[in-house]
């Protein structure tokens, strides 16, 4: 599991995740992702198209990120998750805290609004 960070707009950071959000993947990137998100102060759009698997520890990482951002008045929107990953997020009831939309444009619209 790895991630890249870039500026999507002056007020939105784009994070792209690649790999498995499982226990091993979470251990690998958890601290670095937390640090990266702590900076900037922007809203976050998270591209999940490169994520092949997610389980509870990966969800814990995302939920923790969402809550930390929320405390700072910043929002997190996920987008473009593969079907089985989206299904897992829905199974866990996380789609309210962390909306998962279909595309990058939809994420932009969601965060700009």
């Amino acid at each position: 599991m790895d991630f890249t960070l870039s500026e999507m707009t002056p007020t939105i950071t784009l994070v792209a995740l690649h790999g498995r959000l499982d226990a091993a993947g979470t251990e690998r990137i958890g601290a670095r992702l937390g640090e990266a998100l702590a900076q900037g102060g922007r809203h976050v759009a998270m591209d999940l198209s490169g994520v092949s698997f997610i389980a509870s520890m990966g969800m814990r990482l995302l939920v923790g990120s969402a809550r930390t951002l929320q405390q700072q008045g910043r929002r997190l929107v996920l987008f473009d998750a593969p079907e089985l990953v989206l299904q897992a997020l829905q199974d866990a009831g996380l789609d309210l805290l962390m909306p998962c939309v279909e595309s990058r444009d939809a994420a932009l619209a969601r965060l700009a609004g």
Partner: protein
Amino acid sequence: MPRSRDWPAEAPRTRLQVTAGLAGLEAARQAWQRLAAGRAVGERTAYRVELVLEELLMNVALHGLPGPAAPPVTLTLVLADDAVGVQIEDEGPPFDPHAEPAAQAADADADAGGRGLRLVRRNVRRWQHAREGGRNVQRLEIARD
């Protein structure tokens, strides 16, 4: 194993010891992938099996006995025409997954374990637990798509 009469004798299977932790989880995944290779296992089925392995092995790792950092687990996988059988045996403290309260998502850390078990429950068609000879024995069945 669900009593051997539940699984056809000719169904491919594998049985191995792994440690409950990241290294053991990787070994378990590889054993599953070897069993499934070339046998037309659907994507959803494969995801569900990997989810079960991840959640239950990590659960043993996190809630097992103090002692070895990665307690040994015996894993059995059976690939039948209509379902995948997963059996996980560990020597940790008694663990009854069906007694776990459905945790509310009030706290991310506290809820992680509950969330994992709920995910398993959503993805298996049968989940039996037994305490046999000082071991937890989990027997799960995942429908094949």
